[in-house]
């Protein structure tokens, strides 16, 4: 991990503000719940430091942490960051937001691939590390988390590191159960828990505004990536409660309705009363 440096906080917040301004609105039915901006600043700096000089795969990135990392690094606000990042997301709006922003800001290290994690991982599988903030699995004992983590592990050929962002609460039972199940799954897959950073992040989450998430950092026991045979996830038991109780996945991709005036107020939202009428 790179050495942490003092950063210009105002510049960092404004850089993340650029990203937030560019981000599509969340779809709650797919558990797209966005991290609060202050936590995004700190998380992006951490991710940049953790993945310094490496190739990083994001398995889903509605929060746009990838863009924040690239923008902070490219803008010279931090002097460390990954060498290459690929965002894999099933929401074309998220992928387009990455592509659009990266093009505008000349972020050469970042690209996006439209991909649903229920399908076989398209590769490459030689990333050094992966990052995921998946659906947290309150109703499926963490099965949805495990699916995203599985794809992350495949992206590293089961030979890298992973940062998994999941719910962490002192009082509720389900986050403890999910944390235990995910760690058990990672260990069974040849990884160990390298670090756990408890209750770090807050969210725009109106059914539990106090619920935090942690960073769970895994590292593979194996040093070098191995060949991976990825396959689609068809097991109904794994999928039955994927997006919440009795809410299995039914959408392969969220498609973007293209607009020439992206980012501007939609004309459905307003009309004009003209002067002199």
């Amino acid at each position, binding site marked *: 991990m790179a050495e942490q440096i003092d950063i210009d906080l105002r510049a960092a917040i404004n850089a993340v503000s650029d990203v937030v301004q560019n981000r599509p609105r969340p779809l*709650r039915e797919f558990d797209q719940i966005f991290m609060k901006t202050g936590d995004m600043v700190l998380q992006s700096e951490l991710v940049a430091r953790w993945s310094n000089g490496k190739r990083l795969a994001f398995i889903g990135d509605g929060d746009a942490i990838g863009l924040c990392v690239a923008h902070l690094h490219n803008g010279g606000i931090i002097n460390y960051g990954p060498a290459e990042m690929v965002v894999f997301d099933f929401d074309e709006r998220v992928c387009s937001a990455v592509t659009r922003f990266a093009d505008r800001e000349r972020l050469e290290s970042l690209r996006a691939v439209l991909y649903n994690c229920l399908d076989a991982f398209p590769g490459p599988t030689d990333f050094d590390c992966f990052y995921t903030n998946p659906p*947290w699995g*309150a109703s499926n004992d963490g099965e949805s988390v495990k699916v995203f983590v599985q794809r992350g592990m495949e992206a590293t050929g089961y030979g890298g590191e992973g940062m998994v962002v999941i719910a962490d609460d002192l*009082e*509720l*039972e389900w986050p403890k159960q999910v944390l235990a199940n995910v760690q058990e799954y990672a260990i069974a897959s040849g990884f160990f828990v390298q670090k756990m950073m408890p209750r770090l992040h807050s969210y725009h989450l109106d*059914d*539990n505004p106090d619920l935090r998430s942690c960073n769970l950092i895994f590292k593979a026991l194996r040093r070098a990536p191995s060949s991976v045979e990825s396959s689609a996830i068809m097991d109904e038991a794994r999928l039955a409660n994927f997006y919440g109780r009795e809410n299995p996945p039914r959408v392969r991709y969220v498609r973007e309705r293209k607009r020439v005036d992206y980012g501007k107020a939609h004309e459905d939202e307003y009309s004009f009363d003209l002067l002199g009428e």
Partner: protein
Amino acid sequence: MADIIKPGTGLVYMKVGTHARETLADIIKRKTQEIEETGHGFWGYGGSTCHPLRMVQPFAREHQRRDGVIYLCMEPMESRHFAEPVRAEEYSADGVSWVEVPPSINVLGSRYALVIQNLREEEFELPLERTTVALGNSMGARGSRYVSGRVDKACLEVADDAPSMTAKSVRIGLVADIVEPYAVLLRNKPR
């Protein structure tokens, strides 16, 4: 209503009051007429704590299989909620297929609606301390703790290990039966 407050029972709790510039009495009168004319009514609401597809439908399906009727228990309150009284024109039970809201139903200023029958004024104490949140990110939390601040509605189960009936209660004043498809999404017609 004592049968509502027994272990395992599921209910949707909601605070209700003035909404979209209508008094509660006016809303009750209008909804009762809707139910008479249509066979069911739409009870509009907002927020994401009781999302129709992610929360209410799976919760209601499970409890209907188990217990039969799902109750909507409403606590009347003074409200300063003055949403714009924009009428929803289409509804969807799955987020994919959208159909026109029947002319006899008017849901104003709401993104979601519960599908109800048998709306009636009925008064009883509901001890939220004896309930837990049934699903979602706060699953397992006590109802009394969950329903606070901005959270004013919840899918709750009456708990087995409930404290005594003397626990702090809320005063329910309005009850309805929630019927299939339990809850729907609302929107204006795309232009």
